């Protein structure tokens, strides 16, 4: 029982990272109808920004964190203008290929600067963790879970309670109609890219002390997050969060009870099971109703 609780905690912690990246996937998909294959590189770039400011320059952790997040907001702007905006009137295919191209460009640029050896980033807290009864709560996982809870609440408030959130939803549902009402569609898409880049960046910064900072970290996280969006129901915000958490828990338990080397395999086994038996995902009906 103690082990179960311990694994549950770790699984939710890693699942929270998948959930944040998955949320970025879903928001961009709903706004542009395109899967952003560079979403994982958003996390990787943010983690390397932390390495630049916190490790290489030795600036305070909180300052590096703020600069990295601001950098990701700017990165979202550049990504939108450079990758999506020039192709916005084309079909989804050129845009998808452009995001794949951006993903390759980003990882190889970082490779050229930092080389293939992984970098190490310290966690936010000096205390490694606290013992709560039978469960050891790692401080970095606690931070990840706390930030994710706050972001999910913020996300709900933003999209459900503010007029700007409603305009973003309207734009994702029918761009032409949104523009007829005077909603600036290009501004809404810009906001979506900024928000998704910051979400992905946060996930990367939070998970970096748990993993290593490497050019592959983005694609690993993005694959899991992509699987999470399919498990949750593609295009569904709640689905992305539930799918991400579920995937984190499943692979943690799989690694502990069945096989550690096949840890990544469990995620994709679950993905395949969903694709065969419930391709619409957990929250699939709601997506179908929106169509």
């Amino acid at each position: 029982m103690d082990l179960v609780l311990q694994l549950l905690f770790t699984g939710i912690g890693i699942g929270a990272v998948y959930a944040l990246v998955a949320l970025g996937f879903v928001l961009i998909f709903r706004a542009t109808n395109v899967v952003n294959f560079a979403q994982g590189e958003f996390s990787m770039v943010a983690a390397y920004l932390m390495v630049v400011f916190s490790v290489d320059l030795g600036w305070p952790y909180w300052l590096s964190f703020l600069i990295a997040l601001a950098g990701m907001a700017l990165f979202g702007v550049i990504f939108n203008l450079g990758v999506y905006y020039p192709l916005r009137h084309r079909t989804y295919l050129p845009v998808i290929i452009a995001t794949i191209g951006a993903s390759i460009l980003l990882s190889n640029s970082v490779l050229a600067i930092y080389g293939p050896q992984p970098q190490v980033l310290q966690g936010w807290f000096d205390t490694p963790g606290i013992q709560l009864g039978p469960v050891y709560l790692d401080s970095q996982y606690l931070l990840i879970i706390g930030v994710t809870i706050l972001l999910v609440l913020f996300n709900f408030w933003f999209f459900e309670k503010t007029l700007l959130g409603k305009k973003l939803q309207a734009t994702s549902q029918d761009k032409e109609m949104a523009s007829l009402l005077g909603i600036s569609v290009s501004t809404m898409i810009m906001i979506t890219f900024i928000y998704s880049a910051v979400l992905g960046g946060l996930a990367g910064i939070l998970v970096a002390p748990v993993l290593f900072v490497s050019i592959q970290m983005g694609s690993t996280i993005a694959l899991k997050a992509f699987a999470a969006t399919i498990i949750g129901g593609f295009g569904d915000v709640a689905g992305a969060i539930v799918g991400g958490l579920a995937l984190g828990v499943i692979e943690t338990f799989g690694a502990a009870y069945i096989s550690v080397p096949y840890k990544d395999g469990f995620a994709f086994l679950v993905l395949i099971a969903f694709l065969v038996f419930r391709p619409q995902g957990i929250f699939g009906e709601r997506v179908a109703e929106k169509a």
Partner: protein
Amino acid sequence: MPLLEIRNLVVRYGEIEALRGVTIAVEQGQVVTLLGANGAGKSTTLRAISGLAKPASGDIMFDGHSIAGLGPEAIVRLGISHVPEGRRVFPGLTVKENIMLGASNRKVPASQISREADAMFDLFPDIRAFSNALGWTLSGGQLQMVAVARGLMAKPRLLLLDEPSLGLAPVIVQAVFRIISQIRKDTTVLLVEQNARMGLSVADHGFVLETGRIVLGGKPDELWGNEAIAAAYLGGHAKTHA
């Protein structure tokens, strides 16, 4: 000076010439109805006015200024609100949210928009009970009411209505047209209809479009009076009254 004046408007979709020199004028305070068969260019005319279709040549003057070539976001800010074909109510937003977004062309605080949306239900009492229902759950008639209410939230000087009666039961069509005759007290309306009888019943002036050209224009009585024209373009009239 007319509120809206279209001169020799030509619109092309690729190789196809959808409008081949359309000239119409809409005076302030009028309801003008644009009639014609499927594919005659009625919706294209409205799409060109609201900025969704780019004119190849010709001009569109609103309140004395050319608006041809402006984007839809700029045009709705000038006071032209387009309620397009198919209602286009946002399926994942509630009725009230849909209506509130109609005010996106104006800079007013959210609290005021919310109050104005509530007041809109006085004009559309049938959808008041569905205020919190999502768009996709509504019937065709309810969707049409939401679409018109949303269009009115822009406080337009000119309202463009595309086929408001399409696919609705006769009793609902009558309710929609009762609303149009109420709207006309404050707003100029350019109405596109296949249902000539209803379309002309509320109109001050009518135009008939045929394959991208205006072939006839006049007061509703004159249009009805022309038996040959009525039989050809206003479907059903000649049969009923012959």
